[in-house]
């Protein structure tokens, strides 16, 4: 009660820090722009880079992070389901395509029986990659598994493809060992490929296509904080033209902003 009277006075001038968990460092320029937009609100975003989303979610659940911005709906839902997290999406960020690359073939039509295909070794991107193969007509997966089938959920594999899980960051390097590989665009970019032009198969990154919906990246808060005004301001600052520009610029048009501004 002693400090009660001074509270509002200091709160006004003091910058509020919001810790946002990221995976990797490629989004840093985006959040720098967000920070610029937030300056007038006395809010500062501090990003914490993880190499792994699982521990980032865990940290958020433990209130060591305020927000996270690295995962798509599919991963989020899987995590919520498995670990009983109470998270809420408070805004979308962008859609990253997951395309098929190869050093050996120009089109998936050239796939031969018994070829090896590399897919990411984390559950969600593996599931997504299988869905890509399905949409390319190479395999069929158990529909009951929804968006996230595993290799063992393949119900039909007419080319008898051997599907191997490896680190998505290294799939491009490992392409010579495979007929084709499916990996996240940022890794393709890092390997100096154009994730769209250099892909031998890609899905159109239409954010309004419901098939793409699970793969849209989102900004997540704990459900208990979903109405936090500060966080809303952060999302607002993200959903701006300036940020959209940065996203397009840093990712050379490969990432599609998934918000209105």
């Amino acid at each position, binding site marked *: 009660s002693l400090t009660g009277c001074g509270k509002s006075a200091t709160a006004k001038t003091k910058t509020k820090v919001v810790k946002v968990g990221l995976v*990797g460092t490629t989004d840093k320029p985006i959040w720098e722009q967000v920070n610029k937009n937030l300056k007038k609100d006395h809010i500062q975003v501090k990003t914490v880079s*993880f190499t792994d989303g699982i*521990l980032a979610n865990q940290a958020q659940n433990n209130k060591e992070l305020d927000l996270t911005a690295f995962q798509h709906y599919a991963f989020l839902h899987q995590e919520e389901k498995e670990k009983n997290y109470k998270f809420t999406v408070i805004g979308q960020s962008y859609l990253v395509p997951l395309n098929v690359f190869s050093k050996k073939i120009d089109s998936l039509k050239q796939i031969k029986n018994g070829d090896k295909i590399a897919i990411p070794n984390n559950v969600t991107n593996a599931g997504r990659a299988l869905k890509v193969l399905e949409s390319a007509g190479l395999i069929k997966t158990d529909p009951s598994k929804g968006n996230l089938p595993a290799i063992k959920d393949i119900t039909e594999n007419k080319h008898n493809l051997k599907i191997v899980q490896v680190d998505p960051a290294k799939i491009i390097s490992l392409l010579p060992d495979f007929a084709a590989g499916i990996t996240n665009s940022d890794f393709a970019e*890092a390997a100096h490929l154009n994730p769209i032009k250099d892909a031998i198969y890609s899905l159109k990154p239409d954010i309004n296509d419901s098939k793409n919906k699970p793969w849209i990246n989102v900004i997540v808060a704990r459900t208990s904080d979903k109405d936090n005004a500060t966080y809303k301001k952060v999302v607002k600052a993200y959903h701006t033209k300036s940020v959209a520009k940065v996203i397009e610029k840093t990712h050379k048009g490969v990432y599609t902003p998934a918000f209105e501004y």
Partner: protein
Amino acid sequence: MDAFFSKLFPNVASNLDVFNAAIIQTLQMVVISGIISFLLSLTFGILIVVTKGGGILANKIVWNVLDKIINLFRSIPFIILIAALIPVTRIISGTAIGVKGTIFPLIIGITPFFTRQIESALNETDDGLIETGEVIGLTPWQLVWSVYLHESISSISRVTTITLVSLIGLTAIVGVVGGGGLGDFAIQYGYQQNQFDATIACIIVLLILVSIVQIIGTFISKKATH
């Protein structure tokens, strides 16, 4: 010079603050967890040597428990260990992320290995010297201090060198909990973003670090050999 650096290491130059922070983080992780783990490993190493069959405080139960625990912890892949430890880490360090959150898992990760190394070093002590200590009437702890430890300074500094280098290696894995450090920098920028110069820069700094550890270790080891 600066221009030259930017040219050679463009990606490092553009993230120089992160890189510098990474160096500091690595140093913090290595020094803090190294010191604590050294003390723990010395304790456990001594315990396992004195309690083994025929040891000066032979004790089957203590020895077996220690031996099995060490093996257990050495059997757990480090990344899984970190994840499994998170709740405990939070209780102990107040947080499970950042440098602060890495110290505890690093200690738990390196101590079993370090203990085996210390055990190895202490076991080199000549039986005749232990016997002499006993004949002189030293108590077990005097014996540990004045014979086992004193006569093993050289070996201990040698195994500590090996262990510290391994510890530096472990810090590269703790990026998963946002610990940062040079290893993480190399993974984030070099490995995941294919920025070759970032990898090289990290390796150079790590190499310098490793070499310093090696030189100091060798120096102490030599000094202690008469």
